[in-house]
């Protein structure tokens, strides 16, 4: 970002409404053979009617987090912490109760609709299997904007386009009348205009049905524009959780800033794109300190050993960085964002007046 965009209005409270629909607390997931946890102390909430985005590179754990809400884990995974949906602990569910949870409360919209639909079965069968009646199936297809739903219910997936199939998958997700919709890269496989249609559709449906929507994407711009709150994940951890506007105007974590500056912005051809150096970490990488340290332009020697934890921000959000200023009095510090020179700057240090990392940690 090149321009200085000072915050004009006070940041809204980033804390979710009290009666959270989905509440994940300190979820840690270990896989046999992996050097580090797939998920490390992930906490996240979604309230009814709220759109929450989960952003990260592939392998950051965003899909795994979303699937945890369904009680769906990779084979051999060992989970600790808590995943509560509507007050029920999902981690303890087994057998019929787990199945009922997946069938009723939460629905997942898969990334690739062509892979999510059984190629040899009819679209109508797919909807009926997910709890719709035969007549209802036609209505559902109409409600997700599919023309000629009477004919569509008798078609098979290979007779339809990717955008149409994604509408079918969304209709299937709605068939069970869920209260929380998980959209796992639901639009990434579609072309841009279809993408916009589907996004608009999801928003309408959320409003009509009062759904909570957990929106998983690798596109931070899209996330910030589309949702109420954003969680940014890196290496199985939540590195920043903010309201969408706060995140976009004043990202607190260096990784978030990296994500914002490495993708092009409309109408801005002057600012050079700055890719985040290095590669996303794999499951065989372990980190004694901050996992982002090797790719971070602002890393200090202390980062090598600082074990990340969410540091509350003055606007109610949190960021897991040693150099985030936690002192409420020193806000707003974010106006400095756009002025940083390219390269290795000392943003947190200068703004926080040399605040000691250890002090920050106590906050």
């Amino acid at each position, binding site marked *: 970002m090149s321009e200085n965009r000072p915050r004009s209005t006070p940041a809204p409270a980033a804390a979710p409404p009290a009666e959270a629909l989905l509440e994940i607390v300190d979820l840690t997931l270990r896989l*046999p053979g992996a050097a580090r946890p797939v998920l490390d102390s992930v906490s996240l909430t979604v309230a009814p009617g709220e759109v929450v985005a989960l952003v990260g590179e592939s392998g950051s754990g965003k899909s795994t987090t979303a699937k945890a809400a369904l009680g769906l*884990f*990779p*084979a*051999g*995974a060992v*989970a600790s912490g808590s995943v509560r949906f509507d007050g029920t602990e999902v*981690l303890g569910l087994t057998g019929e109760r787990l199945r009922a949870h997946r069938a009723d409360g939460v629905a997942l919209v898969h990334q690739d609709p062509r892979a999510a639909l059984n190629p040899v079965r009819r679209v109508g069968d797919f909807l009926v299997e997910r709890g719709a009646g035969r007549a209802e199936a036609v209505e559902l297809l109409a409600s997700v904007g599919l023309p000629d739903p009477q004919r569509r219910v008798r078609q098979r997936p290979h007779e339809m386009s990717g955008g149409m199939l994604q509408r079918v998958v969304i209709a299937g997700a709605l068939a069970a009348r869920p209260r929380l919709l998980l959209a796992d890269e639901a639009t990434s496989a579609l072309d841009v205009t279809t993408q916009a249609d589907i996004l608009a559709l999801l928003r309408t449906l959320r409003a009509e049905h009062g759904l909570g929507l957990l929106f998983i994407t690798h596109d931070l711009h899209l996330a910030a524009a589309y949702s109420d709150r954003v969680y940014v994940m890196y290496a199985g951890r939540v590195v920043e959780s903010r309201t969408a506007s706060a995140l976009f105007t004043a990202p607190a974590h260096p990784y978030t800033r990296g994500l914002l500056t490495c993708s092009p912005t409309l109408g801005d051809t002057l600012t050079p794109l700055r890719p985040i150096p290095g590669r996303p970490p794999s499951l065989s990488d372990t980190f004694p300190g901050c996992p982002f340290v090797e790719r971070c332009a602002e890393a200090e020697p202390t980062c090598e050993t600082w074990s990340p934890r969410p540091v509350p921000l003055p606007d109610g959000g949190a960021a897991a960085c040693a150099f985030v200023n936690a002192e409420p009095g020193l806000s707003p510090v974010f106006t400095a964002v756009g002025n940083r020179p390219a390269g290795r700057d000392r943003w947190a240090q200068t703004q926080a007046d040399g605040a000691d990392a250890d002090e920050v940690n106590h906050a």
Partner: protein
Amino acid sequence: MTAILNEATAPASAPALAAVRARRPLGVLVAGTLLALVVIAAACAPLLAPYAPDTIDLSSSLVGTGRDHLLGTDSSGQDLLSRALYGARSSLVAPLALLAVAGVLGVSLGVLAAWRGGWVDVLVSRLTDVMYAFPGLLFTVLIIAVFGAGMTTSVLALGLAFTPTVAKYTRSLALSEARKPYVDAYRVQGMGGLRICATHVVPNLARAILGYLVVLFGEALMSLATLSYLGFGAQPPSSDWGLMVQEGQAAIVQGAMLPALVPGTAIALVVVCFNVVGVWAADRLGRQ
């Protein structure tokens, strides 16, 4: 901590796999020991057998197990143990001869097809296709219908019937072998194709082909025993196992099961053991 295993998508856990691998050598050991015993028994049949295999004694027809006849006798009073011991010889040697025929023909055709390519390859493939159009034993049965029954005819006919399989397998191996750089190097030195194949390509494939033939042994034994049972293979007074089953079958209705069951069990036992050892051996031969 809650351990959550995703039902039905869980792959074999590491300990389970290890257990399977650990159990296999035991099975191979048992099967191998049994086979060795059968081979030794067949080789030492004259020493071990209490009677000559063709001693007819009508006074002790269809005797059950007892001190005189450990496994009883058949309807002509011949000692079943002695017959089974002698029968092991033809029952074990004939499949070897069959595989030798199929091996020589199949390897030659397979290498030829892979080496020459073009119309030769097409011709060999079409020939094997026509043979595949005959299900199971029918090709063999046709040859026997023309040339008459007998062990030699059966071995040759089954050898021909097994040839396409061996040729197909060899061809796939030889295709990749012929593309290796050393082949070109020998060609540049002026070595002829036949010589390169005979002195390098075939020896290099020998282990894998041998492994494949070992796996086929059980099927070869079963097929030969079946032909003998139908009266197409071994002819009386041979005590080939397949023929013994045929001869003993009439006594079953009279309540004497041993004449058919003794050779029948011998066939099943040897085939099972050979399949266990064969898969293991092919695995080892193919890997190196």
